[in-house]
């Protein structure tokens, strides 16, 4: 197994995630795309940890997972709030403030 394979996978996930964040109009999908990026990070960390024979990578990954959970919690709450006020979660329509 080469490190590169994991890194490429992670890079692909990252790219997909970024695409999702930039292109999806639905708030929930954007949230999920962010999760994709975080997972790309996790893959990186874990594979580097294995490659480097260091425990901190895994530890880092655990923290990322935990924090990501909290983040998603907040994010979903936020989207719910938005939905309650606007009956719509299309991100492209949220532009009350600009300039």
């Amino acid at each position, binding site marked *: 197994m080469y490190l590169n394979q994991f890194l490429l996978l992670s890079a692909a996930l990252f790219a997909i995630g970024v695409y999702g964040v930039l292109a999806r109009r639905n708030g929930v999908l954007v949230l999920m795309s962010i999760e994709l990026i975080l997972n790309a990070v996790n893959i990186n960390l874990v594979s580097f940890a294995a490659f480097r024979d260091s425990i901190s990578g895994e530890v880092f990954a655990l923290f990322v997972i935990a924090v990501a959970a909290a983040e998603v919690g907040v994010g979903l709450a936020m989207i719910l709030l938005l939905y309650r006020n606007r009956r719509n979660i299309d991100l492209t329509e*949220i532009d009350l403030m600009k300039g």
Partner: protein
Amino acid sequence: MTTQLLTLAFERPAIDWHAVAPELTLLAVGCLITLIDIIFLEKARPYTATLAGLGVLATAIPIITLAMDGVDRVLFDGAYVVDDFALFTKAIFLISGYVIILLSTNYVAEGDYWENEYYGLLLASLMGMVMMSSSRDLISIFVALELLSIPAYLMVAWRKRDARSNEAGLKYYLMGVFASAVMLYGMSLLFGVSGSTQLSEISSFLTNGNVSSVSAITLAIVFVVAGFAFKVSAAPFHTWAPDVYEGAPTPVAAFLSVASKAAGFVALLQLIYVGFHNQSAVYEPLIWILAAASMTFGNLVALKQTNIVRMMAYSGVAQTGFILAPLAVAGHAGLEDQALSAILTYLAIYAAMNLGAFAVIITLSRKTGSAEIESFNGAFRYAPAMTVSMAFFLFSLAGIPPLGGWFAKFEVFSVLASSDDVWGYALAVIAAINSVIALYYYASVARCMWADEAPENDLTPVSTTSSLVSALAICAIVTLAFGVVPQIVGRFADVTLLTLGG
């Protein structure tokens, strides 16, 4: 490796309780507030703010004792350090936090929002910042960052029936999460290249590092810096700031523009000074571009703003550029400490003057009910003290002596001027030109407030509250004191980050 892990019995690492006392105090007060809320419900409402304020002040006690002790404390194998730098920045966070609480007191209470949770979140966020000051490890930095950010997302959206507040919250959240994801990706690469999450070790690896991974290192550094550039709202990562400031409750905007920004800088400083110190070839041009872009972009766009909070957001972007500027030459031999102390000085002074400006905005908005600059016209007629203080803060931001801002700018210029490098000088000239542009909009606001006619000639006085007045007084005194006797801030900011792993 796995076996190793299993065979080791978990042994709690030694904890220096004194060193983590500030964080613990904050945690305890946060819990206390939540408990009180649960137990006493509405009855406790009037006291929450006071309690939170006292809690923040109580947190200052261990910081003072630690400072008097004067010993650098290293915990968790260097992942968590309490040194002068950490203490100084913690003090900045706490004092700004206290002022924010003062600013929030009436705003939150009168807006009929949830109070206990608000202060709980505020304290949590503050705790994240206080942690950030000591974090010298990618993991702890990340955790601190999220700890300070997540409550802030919620606070931005606190006015939950207000569409703008919702929008601001969502924008801040999405951008924040995306930025931290990008940053994390960079961190993972960094870990991959160096094999450690600890900054000092990363640094020593990069110093002796292999040439093959230069582009990975560069990519990692850029991504990590970008993540924090987002936090400090440096152009072009600043896009969220104006919208979020405008939509958020004004005290929260103040909090973001001061404390949160400072936390971002603290992280950046630690990363650059401890982690990337020998990578000046990468971060110097990067920061140079960010600094120049922030100053210019922030100032130019601020010229066109009609909403004062939005203008403050862009002015904050420009100020970020100024604060970043010394970092652009921080890799020059002999300039490290000078640049560091310039940035810390700037942060401290910026906190005072910016909070002061927000305090005035909050106070005046109580009367005008708007944050449009026009609505403040002629404030001199009905609120002379407020107008004078606003002029104070605005001109301090512009860098006019003898108000604090001049010394901050002076320090920046002095670092750039001593860089002995064309790029340094160029940045100094850009900064000089920008400080003139900035003056235009600051002075315009001051002029509107002093010289124009009040809308509809409404000269009823502004109602103030004791907490607002005391917040204002603190800021004004500090701003003036920093300007007249810069030594007080200069002495404390004279710290170093290089002793550890430098």
